[in-house]
């Protein structure tokens, strides 16, 4: 399993498909994708132009899958991809790309650049050019079970806390429950409010739910580093858990990439359709709201704004629900410029936040978020991704902006009346 250039090139040859070939042939070097990328707009450095981040992959495509490219390679006109080159590209493929997909959204010829970067990472990781930060997260996920090293006892301890504080049961391994709730390490360690919020919301809605002792971690470092074998292993844990417990729906937590990994890659990774549904918690809350199962009281009166996680909105199609939910509990909800489908990334998605040496660039790119926030001047910032939340908090602190960040699920739960009786259950 050791990484090598040869292996990387072989993997890249495997991931090249018709969409990618069509995309490479369609690019006219118009440069519009740069204007959509916060790593370019905030630094002005052309090397961060999204399509340029794929240059070694483009050459491999050309040399392997086009007649002229093969001829060029034979007579030595086109130079082969080298280890040094891939090492140089590491920064472009990981540190300065969060797979946010804004470039894909603006390309006039329709190139899905984020789709290609995701695939390029397969070869980068196979050739040993993934960043140490993500490799660390991957190793912890494989050996311990979660990228931040969280084990089941930590989850159990948190379950106990929530049960004591709220008097609501947290079911574990309850067979036949309607919903299986996933967590992200970030939530287990930093945002215990999430679990309490779920308990309150499910109790009010009268829904059965459960955590799973063998599959509580939703994040997928395999997808972030670009290792489909590993991504498959991580998804399989969840599939096994969900099928063992015979749940109808698995709820992806407030984490963008966990959602994409499970909802839009999962079945393809394991090679068969799921026997259960996958929903992001915001989709579930939206459904509860529509069905009248979510009843809140009171309103926030300070000025709130919402940061759309890229994988949830632009890459995931969940855009309206969070707005309806915000308006349900807030009298003063204001949108940032470009909010919704074209929202700007926090700068730390797609595993980028795990890369230590990328921090300086990340903070530079955060100036985009800062300018969005400066337009609105909110009192608090709401989001629905624990990773966005951490990255936002770091950026806000760096720029000395005093704006607390909170998760939408916990904000909703705060407005659910105390349930001492059997209401709804």
């Amino acid at each position: 399993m050791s990484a090598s250039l040869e292996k990387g090139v072989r993997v890249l040859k495997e991931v090249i498909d018709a969409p990618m070939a069509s995309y490479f042939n369609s690019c006219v070097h118009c440069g519009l994708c740069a204007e959509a990328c916060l790593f370019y707009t905030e630094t002005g450095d052309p090397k961060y132009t999204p399509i340029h981040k794929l240059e070694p992959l483009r050459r491999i495509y050309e040399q392997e899958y086009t007649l002229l490219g093969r001829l060029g390679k034979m007579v030595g006109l086109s130079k082969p991809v080298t280890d040094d080159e891939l090492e140089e590209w590491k920064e472009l493929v990981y540190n300065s790309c969060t797979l946010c997909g804004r470039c894909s959204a603006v390309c006039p010829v329709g190139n899905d650049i984020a789709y290609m970067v995701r695939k390029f990472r397969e070869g980068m990781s196979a050739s040993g050019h993934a960043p140490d930060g993500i490799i660390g997260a991957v190793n912890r996920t494989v050996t311990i079970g979660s990228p931040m090293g969280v084990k089941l006892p930590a989850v159990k301890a948190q379950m106990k806390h929530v049960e004591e504080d709220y008097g609501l049961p947290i079911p574990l391994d309850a067979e036949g429950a309607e919903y299986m709730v996933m967590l992200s390490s970030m939530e287990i360690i930093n945002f215990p409010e999430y679990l309490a919020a779920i308990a309150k919301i499910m109790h009010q809605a009268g829904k059965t739910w459960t955590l799973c002792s063998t599959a509580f971690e939703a994040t997928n470092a395999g997808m972030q580093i670009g290792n489909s074998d590993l991504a498959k292993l991580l998804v399989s844990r969840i599939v096994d858990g969900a099928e063992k417990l015979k749940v109808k729906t698995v709820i992806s937590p407030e984490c963008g990439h966990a959602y994409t990994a499970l909802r839009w890659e999962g079945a393809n990774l394991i090679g068969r359709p799921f026997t259960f549904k996958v929903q992001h918690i915001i989709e579930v809350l939206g459904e509860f709201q529509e069905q009248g199962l979510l009843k809140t009281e009171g309103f926030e009166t300070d000025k709130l704004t919402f940061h759309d996680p890229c994988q949830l909105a632009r890459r995931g199609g969940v855009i309206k629900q969070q707005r309806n939910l915000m308006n349900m509990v807030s009298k003063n909800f204001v949108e940032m410029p470009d909010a919704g489908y074209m929202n700007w990334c926090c700068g730390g998605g797609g595993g980028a936040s795990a890369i230590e040496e990328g921090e300086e660039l990340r903070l530079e790119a955060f100036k985009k978020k800062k300018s969005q926030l400066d337009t609105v001047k909110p009192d608090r910032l709401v989001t629905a991704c624990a990773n966005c939340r951490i990255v936002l908090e770091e950026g806000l602190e760096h720029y000395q902006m005093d704006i607390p960040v909170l998760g939408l699920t916990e904000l909703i739960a705060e407005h659910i009346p105390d349930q001492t009786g059997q209401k709804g259950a």
Partner: protein
Amino acid sequence: MNDMQFLTWVRGTGLDIALSIFVLGVLWRLFEIYSLGRKPDLTAPRHAAGASGLHTIFRRTLPAEGMLKRAPVSIIGGTAFHIGLAIVVFLFAPHILLIKNLTGLSWPGLPSQFIDLVAVVTMAAMVVVLVDRINKPVKRYLSTFGDWFAWTLTFLPVLTGWMAVQHLLLPYTTMLAIHILTVELLLVFLPFTKLFHAFTAFGSRWYIGKINGHKGVAV
């Protein structure tokens, strides 16, 4: 070879060679690209109105939200010369006549004076995007020989066609022959340069629309 013989050659043998390379080249390139196929998507689709490959083919013709402000020259210049080329190529009466002779298909053209104006606007727009490519750091950074070559291949037929009609510089017969020759060069190279986006852009838009349509995202 005198002017008349030159014209006869480009209209006969030259055109045959160019069209053959063009047609075979396009077919080969389309096969080379789309026969790579893609894996079926096994994830459960989420349907949404307006989210599909076909929608996206049309939608991407207009700039994405906020982009006109960020890159006005690329978008306005690019749109102008694409529309201009389409008008000049397909709605100029002599061109329609040629197409009729080759395929039997025919449609009404636009007045010659109007085509003149469009040709001038098209050339102006092309010069503007060329200057922009030289001036803008990102576009200059991305540019390779292929970009300058493709620009030249596209510009020459418009320039020579316009000059022939205006009787500028060279006798009409010579200029017309040069015009046809430049078109033939364009046809020969189109399948093998970035100009091939004239075909693949539709496929690319369809793919991204299809991939996003599967997720219920209208793009």
